């Protein structure tokens, strides 16, 4: 029963952080090249534009949800399970989400990279 709780919390972490990452990436694509923008309108304006972007705000909210899900997961399960499982599943989930929601061209090279990194993170965090 406890493992059901743990795994649903892990899935909640993965879901929330994937949503957060996708929203943040979309927000920054809308804001545009930060370097060029800074030279044109200044740092304050860049920060203002970023903070005022609705996608950014929702993304940060999703990240906060992911963080609290992590706290829940840690209260139910071991760190040695929760940390690697959540981290590596997030990489895979992000690759899928970036393909479908950001329309990024996720080619074979990127799939392999995402899987390698996910496996590596699982080993490291474990």
């Amino acid at each position, binding site marked *: 029963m406890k493992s059901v709780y743990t795994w649903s919390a892990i899935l909640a972490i993965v879901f929330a952080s994937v949503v957060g990452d996708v929203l943040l990436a979309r927000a*920054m*694509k809308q804001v545009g*090249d930060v370097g060029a923008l800074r030279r044109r309108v200044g740092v304050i304006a860049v920060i203002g534009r*970023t903070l005022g972007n609705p996608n950014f705000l929702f993304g940060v909210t999703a990240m906060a949800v992911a963080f609290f899900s992590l706290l829940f997961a840690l209260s139910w399960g071991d760190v040695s399970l929760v940390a690697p499982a959540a981290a590596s599943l997030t990489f895979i989930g992000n690759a899928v989400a*970036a393909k479908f929601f950001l329309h990024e061209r996720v080619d074979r090279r990127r799939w392999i990279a995402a899987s390698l990194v996910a496996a590596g993170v699982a*080993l490291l965090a474990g």
Partner: protein
Amino acid sequence: MFAAAGDSMLSHGMKQTGSISVDHLQGVILAILNPWVAIGILLLLGFFATYMTALSWADLTYVLPATSLGYVLLALVAKFVLHEQVSPMRWLGIALITGGVGFIAGGPELTKQGHASDAGETAAAMTTAAKAPLRAKDARNGAPSGVEP
């Protein structure tokens, strides 16, 4: 130039995540009572700002694996600064991450895509750039393809 700036930004952010996690090793409760937590929050903000900057230049599927080098950095810090034992499994993990990041950073087409300044350009660069290496790979594998760019 942009690539160099982006790389330095990323490594900057990665170092910051590294040190934050090192703080966490001392115990979360200790860290909360500790003045280090202020520094940690500042570093986290710095990491977040550089992460967002990187996201404005490159794809999520490019930035995310690249930031995972932070894990590698963390393990190396643990090994050489804290003199912790790093097990063979962890070395394997480090190798896998490094390999994955090398894989994604390998092609010049990806940096070009990172340079595109707005969403439209990025999308356009993405489709043209992503096709090229696939074609090249097919050609290398001996597949009959007459569409060398």
